[in-house]
């Protein structure tokens, strides 16, 4: 009998469950699609030079972590469903059905709906996993073919995960139903919204913000006390004082409000302004440290980053908390606005909802900022990593050495690294180019100079330099008598380069003085092991001069005719490290890099990072938008009544529909605009701090294109949610 009731309910209330099914399906689809690449049955053809296990384990962990967030969404949607069905439950209880049974029936209904969602979700997941495969194979630079495979272990994981979640949420629901009184269920629809103005969370937020401000104030004083110097540039001096002044201002304002016993809104408005000032002050620390090479430790920068984060979070919370008071003030000040058509009704709708949901709105807004940041940062970080890979991994094998810890000339690295030659012979690996060369100190006197900020620039002989250029397919260069040129790392800026060249038009060496050639520099990517530590530039001297200089490092670069397999590379790396430890007893430092291994780990890490961030961003976005939309639909009962009053007062359908659209626009617009504002600041700051890397490895045009595409996807997602909420809202208000 009960089974019949369950099935009939499911059939009859399919429309009520629509939101539940849609949300669950999206969750399952995302979960299945992203998890499918970690399946043990998943074997895309990525070539023998790559290994897939690293990626598989990393992906599984990343996805399961992010998916825990989905539990929160499931709980919220279930809460919505419970509210919708309360009246039905009440009638069933009055008729004499036990509340335990009602709970079980509801659980069975949701479980059936959940199962349907899992089925549909897996079906869509199969399609979506194609995109992920395409993404993966593009990352490994392989062409891809569409293959329709169902991975049994992924299906099992998906079903197990969601059934488990349904069970957990279901138990909560059954308990909620059992504990609710019949009278509460009956009057659920008539229930008034809680009285506004009693939100405790903002008081907690204010206290927390004040505490952090005290901390920031003390830190500011400390920094001035220990590090301030009148010789600093004016903006730096200003920065030091600003970091005392603004927190002090914040605290003074709070004390002033406390003494005056001012209204809470006045206090929070002041703090809101202070949070903007504080954010500006703290953000300038890292920016100025970058610009003026301030010797600030990572600890201090992180501390200021924390302050900045808290300022921004408080800004979001306070702004949303005050939004309704702003609207009320606006309304009070402008009678012609207030008494214009249905404006009063509209203001009433917005302020009453904002008053009661400011906490949820703040959370949504913060989550949205996070989602937008993840969306935009993902391509920047992966672009950076893969751009860097291209720059550093230009040879199939590169052996390098460092003399940083060598204090005696006899201990300097002088080997030819024959172990590699032997290994290649044994494994029949043919080399295309092979170059073993020295890097020299222009002046022997600099050998003992180990100051980090004043490390000597090393030199290479022209013949070695040309051999490496040939290896990489670049044009040969020539030098006149007593001439030299400079070779630059990709990351060096034009400004740095110009100032260096201007200061070094001639170089005094142990072999005589050299003048800079007409073509003063070259900036093709030649790997990062060609330069001395802490320097971005290399001199190229004529061979004759180099013979008289002190060789301090010995490197060997090799390109092979065929790619070295992953196994061979691992084996050779092991052998090499055994013979040339990273830190030899002589103090010399050796290292070997295989493009196979570098590429493999970089691509795998990159891919985990990228998919993890995008998955996280999509999940957060879906959560935010679903909650936003449900917040409105949850109150459809109230709204139906309110709009019916409006109709009775003689407002026609056209205007009612306009009002609905306006209300939803504000409802979706407010958190999204605040989130975009804050996210723009965060992303701008982020890009600014890594601007050198962005221009070196990604390029601003590509970056803008990527940001454009991301924004496009976000807009489409938002429009989908907005339109569906609008349609359902109109239906429920008009029915």
């Amino acid at each position: 009998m009960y089974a019949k009731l369950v099935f009939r309910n499911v059939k009859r209330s399919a429309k009520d469950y629509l939101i539940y099914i849609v949300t669950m399906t999206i969750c399952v689809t995302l979960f299945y699609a992203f998890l499918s690449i970690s399946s043990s049955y998943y074997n895309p053809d990525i070539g023998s030079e790559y290994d897939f296990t690293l990626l598989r384990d990393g992906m599984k962990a990343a996805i399961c972590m992010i998916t825990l967030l989905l539990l929160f969404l499931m709980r919220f949607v279930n809460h919505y469903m419970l509210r919708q069905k309360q009246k039905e439950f009440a009638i069933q209880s009055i008729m004499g059905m036990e509340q335990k049974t009602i709970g079980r029936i509801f659980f069975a209904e949701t479980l059936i709906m959940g199962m349907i969602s899992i089925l549909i979700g897996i079906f869509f997941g199969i399609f979506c996993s194609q995109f992920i495969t395409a993404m993966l194979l593009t990352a490994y630079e392989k062409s891809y073919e569409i293959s329709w495979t169902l991975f049994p272990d992924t299906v099992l994981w998906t079903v197990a995960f969601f059934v488990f979640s349904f069970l957990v949420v279901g138990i909560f629901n059954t308990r909620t139903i059992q504990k609710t009184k019949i009278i509460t269920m009956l009057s659920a629809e008539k229930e008034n919204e809680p009285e506004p103005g009693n939100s405790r969370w903002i008081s907690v937020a204010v206290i927390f913000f004040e505490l952090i401000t005290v901390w920031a104030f003390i830190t500011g004083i400390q920094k001035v006390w220990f590090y301030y110097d009148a010789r600093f540039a004016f903006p730096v001096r200003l920065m030091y004082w600003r970091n005392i002044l603004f927190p002090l201002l914040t605290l003074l304002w709070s004390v002033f409000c406390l003494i005056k016993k001012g209204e809470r809104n006045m206090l929070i408005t002041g703090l809101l302004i202070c949070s903007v000032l504080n954010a500006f002050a703290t953000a300038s620390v890292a920016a100025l440290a970058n610009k003026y090479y301030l010797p600030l430790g990572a600890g201090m920068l992180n501390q200021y980053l924390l302050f900045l984060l808290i300022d921004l979070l408080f800004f979001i919370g306070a702004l949303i908390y005050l939004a309704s008071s702003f609207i009320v003030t606006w309304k009070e000040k402008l009678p012609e606005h207030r008494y214009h058509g249905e404006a009063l009704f509209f203001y009433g709708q917005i302020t009453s909802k904002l008053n009661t949901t400011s906490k949820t709105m703040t959370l949504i807004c913060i989550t949205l900022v996070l989602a937008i940041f993840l969306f935009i940062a993902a391509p920047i970080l992966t672009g950076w990593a893969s751009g860097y890979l291209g720059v550093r991994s230009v040879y199939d094998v590169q052996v390098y050495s460092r003399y940083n810890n060598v204090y005696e000339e006899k201990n300097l690295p002088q080997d030819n690294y024959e172990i590699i030659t032997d290994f290649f012979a044994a494994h029949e690996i043919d080399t295309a180019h092979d170059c073993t060369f020295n890097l020299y100190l222009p002046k022997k006197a600099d050998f003992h100079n180990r100051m980090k900020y004043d490390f000597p620039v090393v030199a290479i002989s022209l013949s070695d330099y040309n051999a490496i250029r040939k290896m990489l397919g670049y044009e040969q260069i020539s030098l006149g008598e007593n001439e030299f040129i400079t070779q630059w790392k990709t990351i060096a800026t034009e400004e740095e380069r110009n100032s260096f060249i201007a200061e070094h038009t001639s170089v005094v060496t142990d072999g005589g003085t050299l003048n800079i050639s007409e073509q003063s520099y070259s900036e093709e990517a030649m790997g990062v092991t060609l330069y001395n530590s802490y320097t971005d530039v290399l001199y190229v001297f004529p061979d004759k001069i180099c013979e008289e200089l002190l060789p301090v490092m010995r490197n060997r670069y090799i390109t092979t005719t065929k790619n070295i397999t992953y196994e061979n590379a691992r084996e050779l790396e092991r052998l090499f490290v055994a013979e040339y430890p990273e830190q030899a007893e002589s103090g010399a430092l050796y290292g070997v890099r295989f493009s196979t291994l570098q590429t493999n780990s970089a691509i795998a890490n990159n891919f985990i990072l990228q998919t993890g961030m995008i998955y996280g961003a999509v999940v957060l976005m879906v959560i935010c938008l679903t909650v936003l939309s449900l917040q409105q639909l949850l109150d459809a009962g109230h709204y139906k009544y309110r709009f019916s009053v409006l109709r009775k007062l003689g407002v026609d359908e056209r205007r009612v529909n306009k009002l609905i659209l306006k209300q939803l626009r504000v409802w979706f617009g407010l958190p999204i605009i605040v989130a975009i504002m804050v996210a723009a600041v965060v992303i701008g700051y982020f890009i600014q701090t890594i601007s050198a890397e962005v221009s070196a490895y990604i390029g601003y045009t590509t970056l803008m294109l990527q940001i454009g595409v991301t924004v496009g996807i976000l807009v489409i997602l938002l429009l989908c949610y907005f339109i569906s909420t609008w349609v359902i809202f109109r239906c429920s208000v008009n029915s």
Partner: protein
Amino acid sequence: MNTILKLEHIQKYYGNGGNITKAIRDISFSVEAGEFLGIMGASGSGKTTLLNCISTIDTVSAGHIFLEGTDVTEINPKSLARFRRENLGFVFQDFNLLDTLTISENIALALAINHIPAGRVEPRILEIAEKLNISDILNKYPYQVSGGQKQRCACARAIINNPKLLLADEPTGALDSHSSQMLLSTIQNINKQLKATILMVTHDVFAASYASRILFLKDGEIFMELRKGNDSRNTFFDKILNVLTIIGGGQSHVC
């Protein structure tokens, strides 16, 4: 006196084919300007259907309704909302106030919807609040005031646009006897001092006794008409009771 409202052979059927319910069989009457008309009848007699038809919320199956010469049954559906807000005022049993707005704003909304210039809104609210004795609660929200006060606010909202006709659907239905009495005095004042024409549907005899004329409906037709004339309210009250006894077929119906 001139006629404000005139109903000619109104009929209203529900259902189709062989299963037709006649909510209103044939009703004709007219209301003079400044009149306070009560409509009484048992449940299912067609009172609310009649009110809905007059208020243009529902359509008639046959017949015509004229409000100051305009046939409301012929008005284009798109213009109905405008017609309602310009010509009619409503008072409902369950107040129909918006809980998101203060009492003053609830009244102001009716004016704003009618595009009254902003500068004239507040003086008019104060004026009407004075008359209905709700000046001291203007800045409160509906959930902070009593039922009687809510209903007086609803009355203020209904008459603030000087409607040609005030329609009241069981206005005392949700009130206790004391609040009912106060509200009915208010409605009577509105009728006498502001010269408003009122059409009130009720099945409360006490409420009906405030009207100047009562139509009794039975099975979708006018069963009887009763005029107060020069009678006192008590006498009129007794007369109404007697009519109800006849309609109901026994004393038990009115006790």
